[in-house]
């Protein structure tokens, strides 16, 4: 299945990526080659097959709802942010423009 430049721009927007025109052309070609390759899967009849999402067989692993010490403290976790810290919160650019 061939992806057009419009498709690539749409996917990039969904993924929060900005692409130059040259990148759109390059990725349209490369992503199309990947989708062409995975087309081989269409040969496989999976109508009676359940999907595998995980291989451990584990189901609903629960723990006590109790507060435990974290492996890192608040100040240390905040210190890795590149943005300003105000009252123990990270100040991001405005979500409303």
């Amino acid at each position, binding site marked *: 299945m061939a*992806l057009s430049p419009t*498709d*690539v721009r749409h*996917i*990039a927007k*969904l*993924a*929060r*990526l*900005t*692409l130059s025109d040259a990148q759109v052309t*390059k*990725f349209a070609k*490369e*992503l199309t*080659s*990947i*989708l062409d*390759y*995975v*087309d*081989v*899967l269409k*040969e*496989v009849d*999976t109508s009676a*097959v*359940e*999907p*595998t*999402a*995980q*291989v*451990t067989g*584990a189901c609903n*692993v629960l*723990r006590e709802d109790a507060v435990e010490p974290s*492996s*890192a*403290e608040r100040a*240390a*976790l905040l*210190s*890795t*942010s*590149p*943005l300003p810290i105000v009252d123990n919160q*990270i100040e*991001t*650019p*405005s*979500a*409303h*423009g």
Partner: protein
Amino acid sequence: MLSSLTIAQAHTKLSKKEISCEELTRACIERIESVDTALNSVVHRNFERALEEAKNIDSNGEFPHPLTGIPYLTKDVYCEEGIPTTACSNILRNKDYVPPFDSTTTERLKAVGAVSLGKTNTDEFTMGASTESSCYGVTRCPWDTTRVAGGSSGGSAAAVAADACLFALGTDTGGSIRQPAGFCGCTGLRVTYGRTSRYGVMSMASSLDTIGPLGKTVEDVAMILGTIAGKDPKDVTTGSLPVPDYRKALTKDVKGLRIGVPKEYFIEGIDPQVEEHVRSAIAVFEKLGAVTREITLPHTKYAVAAYYIIVPSEVSSNMARYDGIRFGHSEKAADLVDYYHAVRSAGFGDEVKRRIMIGTYALSAGYYDAYYRHAQKVRTLIRRDFEEAFKEVDVILAPVSPTPAFLVGAHTDDPVAMYLEDVFTISQPLAGITALSIPCGMSKENLPIGLQIMGNQWGEETVLRAGHAYEQATEWHTLTPQL
């Protein structure tokens, strides 16, 4: 050269006080300083802290655990408290991410007194088969520096093969430990999914990612695994099966071991030298009393395609956390959506962007069933192939890769060609089983060739026993590159 010792040898010398931990650590540091200009395997050096730890260990003077005082390197995706950890990506490099906590694995190694020397090179966020997508540039094969070391754990494999450390940690999602171990001529183990904790290791594709060791011998790998394996409440996908003494499994005895040789792994396009050496290795097992038979894994040809739907889908979700807010690269932007765009576009490299976009597409409305769900069903068929095979055999032998190490730049801008480098190492992760990569020959160009020993889920003792028996009967694992 002290850095060329195995863990087992070094432990004996340390215990008998024939060498000090500081001498051993300095030997590794000197080796890194002399070979790494050519290899580019180490991206963050942690030498001062390593020497300080080494001196502390010497002053205690006790070596209760086989890994006490043993210097090692860690792939640049394992969080280590206070040490830059960047996944070799500009998104974490520009303001070096310095984790305030340890991964479970580095914590377990710290607890027994292993000495961390620093971080090794990897493809960006482990996405690649050549370490070429690292923001720090390619790692080169110690046997021929015009060639790649493989990937994504290329830095770890090159460093072990070049005696720059005694062992290293890697991650294997679709071959990222086994393939570079094969290219560089060291020993690498992909564990059963859930055998080791992924906590504190940056995720690529969470249903497939495993963390594991690269070492100089199977015995060393067994000792490392015994130290890092086991249940971790911080990673709910870890299994609660007890951790055996893997070293005890190394009995050297493979009499009656049932070996399967899958015909789908000896196909057109494989380098004849690879086939020749792998077939010779199979003959060695027969001489040792193992029983071989041809088997079939009929869905092998669909593995790469299923993998390259499932992995990008999980990648597109996992990479969402790199948004420039809690850590990493930052940009000026008018509003939050612009900020996400600016940070991610500047921070991620091309292969990461490709996978995010393929995954976004495969998971988007109207395509989910046709791509993602269908690929998950093919995954079920691949699992069943192995379930059937392991009813008849104990281990499966095959090549690690279709060719020895390829030239730097050979697959630039041809993602499908790069993906096909993993053709023999992708089915095992989809099935969740374990597989070991050990050296089994040298090509005419003097490049290592790897043998892959696959075992069933939780079958680490069996693959390690088989690998150890082969190693005792051959000398390929003792060869070292001239640097």
